[in-house]
């Protein structure tokens, strides 16, 4: 602030200055310096307040994003200088079976990890919306997994899912199911990884749905029950449509999260985690990017994978925008 006093000594009397404010520290004459300062304060201070965010974003978000795009058009060894390759990294990806495998895995794990998760969260929120004893306990209990880190949760679940001594195979054995090879078979491994994601996020999403459900106006339910709608009917016809924006929000957030899945498959795979299992059976795009960049040392190709992820997310965002516009039209008309 002190520098700005010296920097702006022109002192033109602004018409906008408050006419009759004596001010607690009215040592100087009103008008002049003080009102210049006041005007500067009003005009510039909002930008000063939002500057830290935009500076941080420019330095650690926007610049790296663009630079990654430029690197993706080059051949870059770890620690070396880039040489121009045009779109070659992208065409290489298009013919790489590892890339398509990782893209497909990201998609399937994403679906297995988010669809049941959000459905269960919806059900849990509905249950928590009843008048309950121990409401506070249930809410904190289902949120506890959210406080557990990816690394801790995955290391615990890797033991529970162990093929030879894991508790999950023991429990399956009680109901007559043969031991499942959770690490080295493709679909079981993808399901196990999805279970970890689902365990960590279901409670969090349930609480978001619960908050939205509690904001639904009561008269909607009253009208529905006057029309003879059952509770299930009310849930489908009143609750779900009313919280549709929140549902859409959680779908978008979960999709973004699923696209970047990294820690769970890596730590679940142990010593072969970065390649997503010995046969790449659960290698995601993030893992492939890390492998290209930091194991192979091909940063240009890793950058191309990062940009493909960005394009995928833009696609998801576009679809989401279309869906929500469509919904709004339908509700309005």
């Amino acid at each position: 602030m002190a520098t700005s006093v010296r920097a702006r000594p022109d002192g033109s009397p602004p018409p906008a200055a408050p006419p009759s404010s004596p001010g607690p520290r009215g040592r100087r004459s009103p008008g002049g310096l003080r009102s210049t300062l006041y005007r500067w304060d009003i005009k510039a201070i909002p930008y000063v307040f939002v500057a830290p965010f935009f500076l941080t974003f420019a330095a650690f978000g926007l610049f790296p994003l663009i630079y990654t795009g430029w690197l993706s058009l080059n051949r870059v060894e770890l620690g070396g200088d880039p040489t121009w390759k045009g779109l070659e990294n992208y065409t290489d990806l298009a013919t790489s079976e590892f890339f398509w495998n990782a893209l497909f895995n990201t998609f399937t794990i994403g679906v297995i990890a988010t669809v049941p998760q959000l459905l269960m969260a919806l059900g849990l929120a509905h249950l928590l919306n009843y008048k309950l004893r121990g409401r506070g306990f249930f809410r904190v209990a289902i949120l506890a997994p959210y406080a557990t880190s990816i690394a801790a949760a995955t290391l615990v679940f890797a033991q529970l899912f162990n093929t030879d001594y894991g508790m999950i195979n023991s429990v399956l054995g009680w109901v007559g199911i043969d031991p499942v090879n959770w690490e080295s078979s493709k679909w079981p491994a993808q399901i196990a990884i999805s279970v970890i994601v689902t365990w960590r996020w279901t409670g969090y999403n349930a609480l978001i749905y619960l908050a939205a459900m509690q904001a639904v106006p009561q008269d909607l339910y009253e009208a529905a029950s006057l029309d003879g709608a059952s509770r299930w009917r009310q849930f489908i016809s009143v609750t779900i449509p009313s919280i549709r924006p929140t549902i859409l929000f959680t779908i978008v957030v979960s999709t973004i999260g699923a696209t970047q899945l990294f820690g769970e498959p890596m730590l679940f795979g142990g010593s072969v985690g970065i390649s997503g299992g010995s046969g790449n059976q659960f290698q995601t795009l993030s893992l492939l990017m890390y492998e290209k960049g930091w194991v192979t040392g091909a940063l240009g190709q890793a950058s191309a994978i990062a940009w493909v992820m960005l394009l995928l997310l833009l696609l998801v965002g576009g679809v989401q925008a279309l869906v929500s516009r469509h919904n709004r039209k339908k509700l309005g008309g």
Partner: protein
Amino acid sequence: MAHTLDRSPAGSGIPAAAPAARPGRRFRQTAGRQHHAGPLTYVLLVGAAFVSLFPLYWNVVAASHSGERVVEAPAPLLPGNRLLDNLSFAWNQVDMGEALINTTIVASLVALSTVLFSTLAGFAFAKLPFRGRGMLLSLVVATMTIPPQLSVIPLYQIITDLGWFDQLQSVVLPSLVAAFGVFFMRQFLVEALPMELVEAARMDGAHSLRIIWHVVFPVARPAMAVLGMLVFVQAWNDFFWPFIALTPDGNPTLQVALAGLGAGNHTVDHAVVLTGALISTVPLLLVFAFLGKHIVGGITAGAVKS
């Protein structure tokens, strides 16, 4: 600015009772239409609570047995007596102690600075008129969708050039303020801070920093506390970028040290690995046990309008 930083840690810890007030009011308003839960509801909810808590309980069990016992079928269900041995091994051999200190430093700095900068920006977006406000706010929200994968390669090159590889500042600086925090504080202040309060202070001749200190901070304090806790949890558990910027044997956070343990860097003793997991989880679970109600309130309050 300097004295603001000094005082805010105390400020963000105090108002434990306040954050619950907002969602609490909402619950009471709608309580009239709520049906009483039937027995099936309780069965299902107890089941959900069991599934949520059992892996955490089993983490304690596994950390209290020997490595041989953990990998024997059937898996142990009750705690054993090896917890202290495992703790001292993890602490001394794998240096979880240093990782714990590093993580505390990183998470505290990130939480403090995010709360401070998010409150300033959130106040500007909520209450101060300026050109481009709507456009800039949309930009803030849009940046939330950009995954960290898009920035790690250049950032890795930069920290390597600066000699910051394996240094804590390389994980603190990119997280000094988050779009989520700005949006969260903006949503809170739009409703919680009456414009008359700001205008009255201006009429009294207060400049913007005084208004921040005497008007905005007192009103925003409950939301600042909740945001601080959410960001602290997030920074504590952050994995992808710390895993690239730090090394398990150098200057790791807990998550990076755990990744090293999980990959079998020091030991293949699974009891010790899970003891490491326990060390990384317990501090946050303690925070949740005492403040869980307010964190629940914060998550729900922040999400409704988005």
